[in-house]
C-alpha cells in the first residue's frame, strides 16, 4: 500500500465507469445512475467537473453526490477501464458485455478480494477498512492523515471523525443485545423495540450510564389494498376501511407512543411539503358501515357478513390480510383490524407469510391486503417507483394505484426544480392519495437509541441510523 494520492475529478469518472461496467454485480444500484450520460473535465482545475445528464431531474444533484469514490490504483491496477468512456458504457453497454477487458475487470471486482481483504477496500472517507468477520463484526480504523482534516471552511457533520476505531457488532437477538448494553459491552444501540425501550429507564445500569434518544425516523408504515380486485375497486369501500383503522390506538399500544401519524408518503418533518390541511381518517365504525352500505354491501342472506353481487356472483366480503411471519407488531395490527372489521360484517383472515414469498406475492399482485413500510430520506421525494402506473409491472406499485392525471403529476414533480412550486404539487399529490386510499397510511416511527454517557458530541439526528458515530468525542470527566 503506497502513499495516498489526491482525489481528482478523474477518480469520479473512474467510479462511474465501475458502476456502469455491464458485468459488474450491481444490478440493484445501476439504474440509479443511468441518468448520468457523460462527464466533462476542465484543464485549469483538476477538481472541477460537470455531469451531463439525460434529463432534468430533482434527484440529479443528490444522487450525483451519493456514491463513494474509488481509487483506480487499488481497484484497477492494470488500467483495464481506462480505455472506456462513460458515454460509451451508457450507449453500448450490450455490445461491451463481450469485451475481454470489461469481463476481466468485472470478474476481479466482483471477487471476494474486494469485499473482505484489508487494503483492497479503499475509499475517500476518514476511515480505513480493517476487518469483517462474517456474522460477528466489522472494524474500521481512523486514517492517520486524511485530506478532510485540512479542509478549513464549509465543514459539515460528515467531516467530524474523532473516533479512532469503530467496531460494528452483529447481535441477532434483541434480548441478548439489551443484556450486552446493560453489561457495558456496547456503546451504542439502535433499533431497540418499543416494548423494551420503555422498560429501560427502570434499570439503574442504564440510567447511570446511557442517554436515551428517540429521533424521528424517515420511514412510514401503511396497509396496502389491492385496488385491482373487484371488492376493493370502489374508492368508497377503501375509504370505509380507512375508517376502521384506529391509528392513534395503534400508535399508543403497539408503538408505545413512539410514532407520529402520517397522511401520506411525505414525512412530517418536511414542513414545507407536508399537507397539514388534510384531515386524517377518523376511527369511526358507524361511518364505515354507512359507506359500505352506500357502496352496495349489505348482509342480504343474514349470515353475519355483508355481501354484494359482483359480476353476477354473490360475493361475501372476506379479506386475506397478509404480513411477514415473525413480526409480532404487524400481527397485532392485523388482529386489531380483524376485530374492527367484524363489527361491520367483514371477515378478515390473518395470514403470516415467509418473507420471500410475502415479497413475491406483492410483486405479482397476489394479495388482498398487506402491511408494508417504506424508508425515505431527507432528499426530495420521487413518487415514480411506488405510485406511477408504469411501476405496476416491474416497479413497486404493488397496489395498482394511478391514472393518467396522477401519472402526469408525478412526472411533473420529478422535473420541477423550483421548490415552492414543487411543494404545492406534492401537497396536491398527497391530497389525491388521501382521497383515493390505495394505502391506509399509518405512522412514521421514532428510532430508539441508547448512547453511552461517556461520549459528547453524540446527539441524535434524523439521518439514518439516527446518530453520527464517527463524530463522538470522549468526555474527559467520565
Amino acid at each position, binding site marked *: 500500500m503506497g502513499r495516498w494520492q489526491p482525489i481528482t475529478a478523474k477518480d469520479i469518472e473512474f467510479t462511474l465507469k465501475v458502476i456502469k461496467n455491464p458485468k459488474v454485480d450491481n*444490478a*440493484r444500484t445501476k439504474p440509479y445512475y443511468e441518468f448520468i450520460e457523460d462527464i466533462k473535465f476542465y484543464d485549469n482545475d483538476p477538481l472541477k467537473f460537470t455531469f451531463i445528464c439525460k434529463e432534468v431531474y430533482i434527484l440529479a444533484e443528490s444522487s450525483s453526490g451519493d456514491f463513494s469514490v474509488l481509487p483506480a490504483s487499488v481497484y484497477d491496477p492494470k488500467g483495464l477501464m481506462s480505455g472506456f468512456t462513460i458515454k460509451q458504457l451508457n450507449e453500448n453497454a450490450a455490445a461491451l458485455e463481450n469485451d475481454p477487458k470489461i469481463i476481466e475487470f468485472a470478474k476481479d471486482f466482483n471477487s471476494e478480494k474486494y469485499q473482505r481483504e484489508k487494503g483492497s477496500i479503499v475509499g475517500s472517507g476518514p476511515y480505513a477498512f480493517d476487518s469483517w468477520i462474517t*456474522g460477528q463484526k466489522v472494524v474500521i480504523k481512523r486514517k492517520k492523515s486524511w485530506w478532510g482534516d485540512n479542509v478549513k471552511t464549509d465543514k459539515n457533520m460528515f467531516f467530524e471523525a474523532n473516533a479512532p476505531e469503530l467496531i460494528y457488532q452483529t447481535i441477532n*437477538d434483541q434480548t441478548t443485545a439489551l*443484556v450486552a448494553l446493560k453489561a457495558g459491552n456496547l456503546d451504542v444501540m439502535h433499533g431497540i423495540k418499543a416494548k423494551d425501550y420503555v422498560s429501560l429507564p427502570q434499570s439503574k445500569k442504564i440510567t447511570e450510564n446511557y442517554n436515551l434518544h428517540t429521533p424521528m425516523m424517515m420511514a412510514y408504515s401503511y396497509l396496502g389494498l389491492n385496488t385491482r380486485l373487484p371488492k376493493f375497486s370502489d374508492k368508497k369501500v377503501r375509504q370505509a376501511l380507512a375508517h376502521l383503522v384506529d391509528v392513534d390506538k395503534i400508535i399508543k399500544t403497539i408503538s408505545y407512543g413512539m410514532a407520529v401519524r402520517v397522511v401520506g408518503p411525505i414525512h412530517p418533518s418536511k414542513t414545507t411539503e407536508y399537507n397539514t390541511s388534510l384531515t386524517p381518517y377518523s376511527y369511526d365504525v358507524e361511518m364505515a358501515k354507512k359507506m359500505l352500505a352506500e357502496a352496495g354491501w349489505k348482509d342480504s342472506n343474514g349470515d353475519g357478513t355483508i355481501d354484494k353481487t359482483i359480476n353476477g356472483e354473490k360475493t361475501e366480503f372476506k379479506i386475506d390480510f397478509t404480513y411477514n411471519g415473525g413480526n409480532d407488531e404487524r400481527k397485532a395490527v392485523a388482529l386489531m383490524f380483524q376485530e374492527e372489521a367484524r363489527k361491520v360484517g367483514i371477515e378478515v383472515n390473518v395470514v403470516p407469510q415467509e418473507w420471500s414469498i410475502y415479497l413475491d406475492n406483492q410483486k405479482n399482485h397476489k394479495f388482498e391486503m398487506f402491511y408494508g413500510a417504506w424508508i425515505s430520506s431527507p432528499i426530495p421525494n420521487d413518487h415514480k417507483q*411506488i405510485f406511477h402506473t*408504469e411501476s405496476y409491472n416491474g416497479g413497486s406499485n404493488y397496489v395498482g394505484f394511478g391514472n393518467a392525471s396522477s401519472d402526469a403529476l408525478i412526472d411533473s414533480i420529478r422535473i420541477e426544480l423550483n421548490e415552492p412550486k414543487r411543494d404545492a404539487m406534492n401537497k396536491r399529490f398527497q391530497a389525491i392519495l388521501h382521497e383515493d386510499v390505495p394505502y391506509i397510511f399509518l405512522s412514521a416511527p421514532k428510532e430508539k437509541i441508547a448512547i453511552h454517557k461517556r461520549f459528547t458530541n453524540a446527539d441524535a439526528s434524523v439521518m439514518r441510523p439516527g446518530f453520527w458515530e464517527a463524530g463522538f468525542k470522549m468526555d474527559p470527566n467520565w
Partner: protein
Amino acid sequence: MLKYIIKRVLIFIPTLFAISLLTFIISINAPGDPAELMLNNSNGGNGQSSQKLATEKSYVAVRHQLGLDLPVFYFTLSDASVPDTLYRVPKMMQRKSLERMCNEYGNWNLISPFYLKGRQFDLALYSIQKDSTNANALTQIKDLISSLLQTYQEAKLTFYFSKIDQTISENPKLLNAENAQLYASLKESFSQIVKNKDTYTKYIPAIHFYGLNNQYHSWISKFVVGDFGISYQDKRPVSSVLWDAMRWTMMISLISIIISYLIAIPLGIQSAVKKGSKSDRAITTSLFMMYSLPNFWIATMMIIFFCGGDYFDWFPAFGLGTTPADAPFFERFADTAYHLILPVICWTYGTFAFLSRQMRGGVLNVIGQDYIRTARAKGLPENKVIWKHAFNNSLLPIITLFANIFPLIISGSFAIEFIFSIPGMGKITIEALGARNYPVVFTVMLFSAFLTLVGTLVADIIYASVDPRISFSKKA
C-alpha cells in the same frame, strides 16, 4: 469385514446421487425466485424508478449470472403441447401463462408468434410520446397488454382485446401506422390460435432432451470436483462461507458431544446397577427435568441472569471474543473458550437424559443375562463385572446414536446460534433457505447426507468390533 466396508462405500455413490436429485428438484420447485430476491429493494420511498427496460434487463442479467436461464434438468417429461424452449421465457408469470395456453390450445407454433408480437407491441407502447391528449389511453392500453401477456383464458383474452379496441377507437391518433399494423397482426394471431385448437396434443407424452447444458449438470459437475459455487447472498465462494461457519459449529458440537457422553454414560450405568434405589430415582427425575426445559429459553434466561444485565456478570453475552487475530494462540483460545461456555451448556444439558436412559436400558438388558450371573458367581468384584464384561455389550444403543453425531457436527442449532450471535452453520443454513441461496443449501444438504452415510457405516463397524456376536463376514 473389509469386503463389507468396500461394498458399503460403493453404495454411497448411488445414494448420494439420488439425494442430490431429490434435493435439487425440491429446491428448484419451491416458490420464491432468487433473482427477484437479489434485486428487491424495500428502500423504495425516494429512489429514481428504474425504467421498464432497465429493470427487465437487470432481471434477465441476474438470472443469467445465476445460471437460472438454463433448463432445469437433462430432460423433461411432459406432454406434446408444451415446447422444449419454454424455459427461456424469463418472467415467471408469463412463462406459467404460456404453459397454460399450450395446454388449453395445444398449438405452440401459433402461440409463440402471438407471444412475441405481444412483447413487441408492449415495448412499442413505451416509445410513444406521452402528452395530455393520449396519456389516459396510453396508460390503459399498457395495463391491458401487461395483463394480456399473463392470461390464457379465451374469455378473458377476448375481453382484453375488446377493451383495447375500444380505447383505440376513442383515440384514433394514438397508434401510428406501424403500431396499428402490429396490433392488427397480434389480434389476428390470437384468433388463429383459437380457431386452430389442437387439444389432442395435450394427451401425448413427450420427452425433451436438453443435453448437458442444464442447471443440474452445471451444478453437480462442479460439485464433484470441489467447486461449490458462489453464494447468492454475499457473492463469496460457498467454501469460504461454510468453512467460516463450520469451524464454530464443529467446535461447539465436538465439545458438547464429548461432555455429554462422558457424563451420560456413567450416569446411565449407575442408574442401571442401582435400579430402583434413591440415587436412581433422583438422577432420573433431575435428568428429565433438564430434558423438558427448552434450550432456547434456558439460553435467554442464562443471558439475562448471568451476563451482566441486572443480575450477575459472570459470562459474556454474545459472540466469540474480541482478541485480535495476531494475539498469541493461547490467549485467543482462552477468550473463545470463555465465550463458548454458555452455548455449550445450552446445547448439552438436554442430551443427558436421553443418552443416559439409553445406556441404562442397554445395561439392564445385559445385566440379567446368564454370563453376568456366572461372572458374579465366580467371585469377580462388581467393578470388573460391569466394566469388563457387561459394558461392551450394553453399548449397542449408544452406538446407534453415535451414527447421528457426524451430521450433527455440521448442522448446528439455529436457536442457540441466533441467541448467542455465533455465526454457525445453523444460522447460515436457515438464512440461505430463506434467501433461496441454492449453492449454499445444496452444499449443506449433500454434506449432511454424506456424513449421515459415513456415520451409519462407522456405527456398523463399531458394532462388529464391540460385540463378538455381530459379524459381517459370511460364515465359513
